[in-house]
């Protein structure tokens, strides 16, 4: 190394000596420049030579595509020369893998992933719907006995269109109704409710009405399914609202004894007749409980009625279940009788 170092020093010395003469500077500059230019040019030559010889340039070149991609600029046509007609496209929801019409996909997804600002409300509404609280249709909503079951209308994406019912569709636009929804939902922001409302109205212009005969409700669940559900949620029936608590099985509002009682009842009765007053307690529902619950619910929906979409059910039934909830709150138990008067298909007598 010392030898080479000496030689480097020698080179430097000679270079500096050479460059100290002004007449040499120009010569040196020119030579270095030409040297570099030659080198760069050789680089290009080698690149071409190599890619030609190894065949990679041919491979890259390929055959030009025959199809014309020329831009079209004429009125009434898009740049591709197509008439801009909105084709109804479908896409598969990445979450639930169902086929959904593209134009309502955002609406579907918002509910399907159930994690938006609306989600806890939506999830609880879904349970409320499924748990068949039918006692409070008075006032805003009338009975929908003659409606086609929502769970059957969503047959693999080709939905049967139903005329919009004023009570379900248009009424949602009214401010008053929105306010009621807001109260019922436990105070989520107003803009979200607007979003929800728009979603329903703008979807396909169709509102699927809820139906009391949905098979996927708690009462109609098999004992096995009920037990499965009770491994996920608290399940204690609230004294005030008569509803099923959907918090986690360690929820602080209810004691373990209460939970044991619920499960014991289930076992002793064989799960057939003792569930009369099970409701979802929307007020105590918490978002953090949502995921397990949603999974369970999705499973119900799939198993219980394979055609229903959890997302659609949430939007279609929101108004009705909310109203029910509101009335439960304001009038308490007195409503039980009116429910019976209405001749609900499902017995909920005390």
């Amino acid at each position, binding site marked *: 190394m010392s030898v*080479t170092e000496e030689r480097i020093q020698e080179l430097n010395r000679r270079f500096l000596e050479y460059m100290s003469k002004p007449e040499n500077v120009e010569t040196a500059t020119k030579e270095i420049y030409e040297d570099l230019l030659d080198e760069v040019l050789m680089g290009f030559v080698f690149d071409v030579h*190599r890619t030609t010889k*190894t065949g990679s340039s041919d491979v890259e070149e*390929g055959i030009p*595509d025959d199809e014309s991609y*020329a831009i079209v600029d004429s009125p009434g046509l898009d740049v591709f020369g197509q008439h801009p007609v909105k084709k109804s496209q479908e896409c598969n929801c990445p979450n639930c893998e169902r086929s959904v019409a*593209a134009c309502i996909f955002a609406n579907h997804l918002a509910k399907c992933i159930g994690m938006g600002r609306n989600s806890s409300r939506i999830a609880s509404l879904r349970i409320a719907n499924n748990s068949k609280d039918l006692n409070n249709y008075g006032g805003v909503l009338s009975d929908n006995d003659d409606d086609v079951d929502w769970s059957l209308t969503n047959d693999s994406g080709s939905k049967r269109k139903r005329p919009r019912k004023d009570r379900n569709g248009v009424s949602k636009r009214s401010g008053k109704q929105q306010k009621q929804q807001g109260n019922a939902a436990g105070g989520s922001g107003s803009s979200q409710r607007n979003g929800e409302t728009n979603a329903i109205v703008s979807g396909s212009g169709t509102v699927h009405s809820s139906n009391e005969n949905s098979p996927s409700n708690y009462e109609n669940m098999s004992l096995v399914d009920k037990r499965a559900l009770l491994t996920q949620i608290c399940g204690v029936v609230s004294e005030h609202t008569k509803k099923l608590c959907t918090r986690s099985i360690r929820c602080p509002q209810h004691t373990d004894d209460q939970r044991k009682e619920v499960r014991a009842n289930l076992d002793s009765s064989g799960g057939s007749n003792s569930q009369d007053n099970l409701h979802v307690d929307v007020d105590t529902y918490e978002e953090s409980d949502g995921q397990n619950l949603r999974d369970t619910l999705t499973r119900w929906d799939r198993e219980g009625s394979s055609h229903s979409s959890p997302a659609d059910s949430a939007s279609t039934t929101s108004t009705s279940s909310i109203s029910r909830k509101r009335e439960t709150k304001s009038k308490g138990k007195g409503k039980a009788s009116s429910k019976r008067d209405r001749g609900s298909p499902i017995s909920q007598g005390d």
Partner: protein
Amino acid sequence: MSDHGCIHLNNFKAAKGIQPYKVIHSYFVTSTSTEARVRKAVSCLCHICKTHKDRLHSCLHCIFFGCYIKGHIQEHAKTKKHFLAVDLCYGNILCFQCGDYVYDRELLAVAKAQWSESAKSLSFGEFYRAWEPTQIEAELLRKHPRRRRVVENTTIGLRGLINLGQTCFMNCIVQVLIHTPLLRDYFLADRHHCPQPSRCLVCEVSHLFQEFYSGNKAPLTLHKLLHLIWTHVKHLAGYEQQDAHEFFIATLDVLHRHCEAAPILVKDNPHHCNCIIDQIFTGGLQSDVVCQVCNGVSTTIDPFWDISLDLGPAADSSGSDKSGLPTSLLDCLERFTRAEHLGSTVKIKCSNCETYQESTKQLTMKQLPIVASFHLKRFEHSSIQDKICKKEKISTFISFPEQLDMTPFMSHKRNGNNNSAMIDGLFKNGENLTFSDNRYSLFAVINHKGSLETGHYTAFIRQQRDQWFKCDDHLITKARLKDVLTSEGYLLFYHKQILEYGRNNKV
């Protein structure tokens, strides 16, 4: 395809292996260490005429350097029957029996590794190499010989996007991202390699680029993208989300986070993110708070992805009534970078004189991003005690130029006038500043039609230097520059005209 060298080279390899080539290459071609560079400088001279140039070659069989121009390496080959030589500039192998340079796959791989090694030893990122297909890629290319080229007047790169139900805000942002020149280069160069593709937004954007350039003319549905973004940005999830600006920032954030999952090696500074999103979109905003008593300046620099510009009347506290309403982007920027008196009620502790004093605050551009995104605050809303009071949408026309020079808003320009501390900085950086070019050109504009409550987003995007298109969900039509410049812009996107080398090494 012949990257199997030649019979002569193969015979040589069979007898002596690749080691001779490797040694010559690592010392006298690429010089992968300081020692090697010294050796190259000292000993790479023609053994006959002592020249250092004239296409110097090294004999592969023995220690001999000879130039090609004067025929000294040929002479050596002939007399010694050493028919293989290595070109010392690029490392290619010349076979005198074939009379041509020959390429051997194995030796090419060795050479490639040595070039990387050399760049590393000089602390360069990597030497530039023109893309060449790997074996697998070449195979694929042969299987699919049709090529779609992005030539003039082609629709390749354009694609309509289906509205998924009030998702025009997303469609517009995606159109902008897809037509961001540097981002396009990144993705079309297949630079993103991902540990978990199924959940990665960057992978999805990469996929979108494939779709846009596929030649397919049918509009695309962005359902997977929407799902990914909603899954990763929980506060956006929900049908009601509608602000394109909010979506843009959230999307950049997710992309940035997912880039970090597949990190690019940054050896000099582990805290500085070098992901493609930061490289393109991140700038530095300097905030100078000046104490009105002692003139002490406290400076902070914060990264930004976009600049939000006020359109309403200027904050009254300054007392200058002549300020009026901005009518152009330049007005807005001028106002944005103006020193603002923070008012007599707001007293800030001065770090210099250690007392609470009235002060002025000024924002300036410390470092400009490659893509400058401007957000014209047409939807003004003030938040008072959790209650969001929305005001009217501001629909005044704000003119914006096709070419924008950001120089007047740079920190050194703006601060030079009013505080002396910065002048030192100016001299220090003087050299850099002389060459900095801060010109930008417009490449995308997002417009909003309608009111606060309901409305529709459309985008103008530039493709191929100067062609403009209007993207209205699934409908893509040709537009004129005049249409773009007279539109009521909401988000404006400018791309830097000249990119400087080594931008990332500075930090």
